């Protein structure tokens, strides 16, 4: 297995489980399951035991490995020099399991659907661009940017609303961009996170060929997950593009006053998506947008920015739901953290986070107190 030469170096000291100020445990599967086995250190030791033949493949072992949300809290807070590779180690272990054909059924089904349909929703590619019906968003031609929407923004009902909000805002702001519509294909971020390296390479290569053929130089993504794949994984496969999350494009436009905003008098807390925040260091652009809206009071959750608690949807869990259910599912914990701020809105900048947190609010029966809105939806409302 890749990284086998460093896996024994984990001391299982537990810094990886905590926030930077030690105020709370911040590893989603550890918070939910509480056994040491579900912590990053426990996982490291179990992988080593598995490789040494001391641990046999089992349903629980699969659950332990695939419940990791790849949120990178461990990467952020591990004190050792190999910390940068922690998520990579977990992905490498998943790759081993994929290669041996011993993944949980939900993971198997996800990967199969991507392989067969090009998306996890078993939908036709013809449906991919329908989110843009009724908007002024154009097909990609020779515009400056490709607006890449991704599977959740293209097929999920909540995701589609967010895609429309972002598409409309970019159009109103005069950003020169277009979409691939039915020609768009899965970016593969979750495929890679779930350990299917070959399928990821195939998807990435397909996308790179297509983007190059169309002359794409700059990409705006709706979804931080796609942003992460394009920015960090595609270059090694020959896909060098200028990649932006949509908040990075909107932020300077809004701050410069090019998009006049009316008063929006609300307390808002912002949830950092892991693939935008910890994985890519973008904490400021979404906050700058929210702070520019007149009347908005941005109230931070105690766990924010590098210490943000994951919604539970990362690393493929949005689709596989291995972490779902129960009072201590990450989404429900995050909603309770948001409620503690007294804000009425959780702002997100990721369709997967939006869906995870909305579901959690329903289970917590807090719909009358808290609402999830994408940053783009908040801006749209403030623009009237």
């Amino acid at each position, binding site marked *: 297995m890749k990284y086998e030469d460093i896996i024994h170096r*984990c*001391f299982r000291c537990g*810094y990886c489980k905590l926030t930077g100020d030690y105020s709370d445990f911040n590893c989603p599967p550890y918070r939910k399951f509480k056994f*040491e086995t579900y912590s990053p250190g426990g996982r490291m*030791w179990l992988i080593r035991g598995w490789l040494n033949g001391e641990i046999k493949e089992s349903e*629980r072992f699969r659950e332990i490995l695939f419940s990791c949300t790849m949120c990178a809290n461990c990467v952020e807070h591990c004190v*050792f020099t190999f910390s940068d590779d922690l998520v990579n180690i977990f992905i490498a272990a998943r790759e081993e399991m994929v290669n041996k054909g011993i993944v949980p059924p939900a993971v198997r089904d996800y990967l199969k659907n991507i392989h067969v349909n090009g998306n996890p929703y078993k939908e036709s590619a013809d449906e991919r661009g329908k989110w843009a019906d009724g908007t002024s968003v154009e097909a990609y031609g020779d515009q400056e940017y490709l607006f890449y929407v991704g599977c959740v923004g293209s097929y999920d009902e909540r995701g589609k609303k967010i895609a429309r909000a972002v598409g409309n805002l970019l159009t109103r702001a005069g950003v020169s961009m277009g979409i691939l519509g039915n020609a768009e294909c899965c970016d593969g971020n979750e495929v890679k996170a779930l350990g299917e390296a070959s399928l990821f390479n195939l998807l990435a290569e397909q996308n790179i060929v297509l983007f190059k053929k169309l002359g794409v130089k700059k990409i705006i993504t709706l979804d931080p997950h796609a942003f992460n794949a394009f920015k960090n994984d595609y270059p090694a496969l020959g896909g060098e593009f200028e990649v932006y999350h949509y908040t990075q494009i909107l932020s300077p436009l809004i701050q410069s006053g090019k998009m006049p905003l009316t008063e929006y008098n609300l307390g808002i807390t912002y949830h950092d998506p892991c693939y935008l925040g910890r994985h890519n260091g973008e904490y400021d652009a979404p906050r700058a947008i929210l702070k520019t809206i007149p009347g908005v009071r941005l109230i931070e959750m105690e766990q924010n920015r590098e210490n943000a608690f994951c919604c539970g949807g990362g690393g493929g869990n949005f689709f596989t739901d291995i972490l779902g259910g129960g009072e201590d599912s990450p989404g429900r914990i995050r909603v309770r953290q948001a409620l503690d701020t007294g804000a009425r809105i959780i702002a997100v900048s990721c369709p997967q986070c939006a869906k995870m947190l909305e579901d959690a609010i329903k289970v917590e029966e807090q719909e009358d107190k808290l609402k999830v809105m994408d940053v783009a939806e908040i801006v749209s409302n403030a623009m009237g």
Partner: protein
Amino acid sequence: MDIYRSLINIVGRDSVSNSQEELFIYSRDSGAQRPRRADYVVMPGTVKEVQDVVILANKEKIPITPLGGGFTLSALVVPNKGGIVMDMKRMDRVIEVNEINRYALVEAGVSQAKLKSYLEKNHPRLQHSTPEAPPTVTVVGNALIQGHGHISSRYGINSDMINGMEVVLPTGEVCRIGSSSVGPYWFTRGPLPDLPGLFIGWFGTTGVVTKLSMKLYPRPGYRELLTFSTDNIDLIPDAIFEVTQVDLLEDFFLINQEKPDWMNHVFFCLILSGHTKEELELKKNIYKKVFLEFNTLKGSRGADKMKLVEDLHPALRKRFLDVPPVAALAADFRKGGGFEYTGTILPIDKIPEAWRKGIEIAHKHGMICSYVHQILGGHSIMFAFNYSFNRADEKDVERTRKALEESNRLTFELGGMVWKGEVGAQRLAMARMDPNTAELIKKVKKSLDPNGIMNPGNWEVVK
């Protein structure tokens, strides 16, 4: 009887496991000791659940090993005779902080991180004694193994800071000990028969502590590290005596590392604190004078002379001022993920001898010597024989075990005691112990735990 089912009935399906994965992790710790089998892991959420598990185990004569952070490194909470590992981390409430009476009442699973963070947020003028261990370790576990914290030089070891506790006895009764047994406050352990002593240092062999009250202390606004160095090991005991005659220290360490060269001196690290800058400056000046006078008294010259370290390496400064420090980094010195030490509680006059012999032991086993010793109030030192090892190299782990064993033997030969010693160290202590004292330990255990279910294998009389 289906023990697994019975445990599920008590704590719920999600909080009990007999899966290979949990049994693997809970059958070993981060030190060098060999794995030892666990049969079940349970995570009780309430005192009642603890009580019911204990009653079940006592009825069925199944061993129970209570576990806090699980980071003794000496495998004290890895079962010796199988049975149930009781992981206390679901019981993680800070129940009360009484600011005016300066105590915190916490459940057994509260981590050092949680209490520290809670105090900083809600009671910023108070602090608790925080050990050098990673912040995930528990307050209760550390206090019960007679751990030390960052203010122990000043106020005593952490077990001295215990005001009282709630404990589930091996036969299932729940007892409150200390002032809470007679009134609503958890502010003092006496004047009463000192029952906390039945549970401190016993490594879980006499009951399961579910709540603990710890003393809190003023948190100063300013802290600074003052460091002196010498190359004369023989000066250490007298220097410690003089430094601790002036009762103004927050914490006090000796450190030395053979590599890099600039670390290969004896460093006296004095952590000073003050509520005002003036107070801190006064203390700094006083200690500078103490060392000046010490040099005069000893007629020290050249490399022997105690020198103020003016250009202290920032990493060293951080190492001693961070609360807690990231001491875990020692585990990766040899890129091997392993670390264990013999924590020797040693009379101060024995330091030079221990120092020299510790270097010999390290070299004998192919290791570079690295020391971090905490001086405990001028009465003793926690002299650490430190060994980093490569977890992936079984021969290296075995070398470490041998080095630990030799350090343990040396400790007793020098008249010292081993702190939180692994079973081997306990056996050495019991073999040397006054027979009547050893018999008393046995009687106390038998009286509280007639079926011998509580973490058996620890503190057992050597036949």
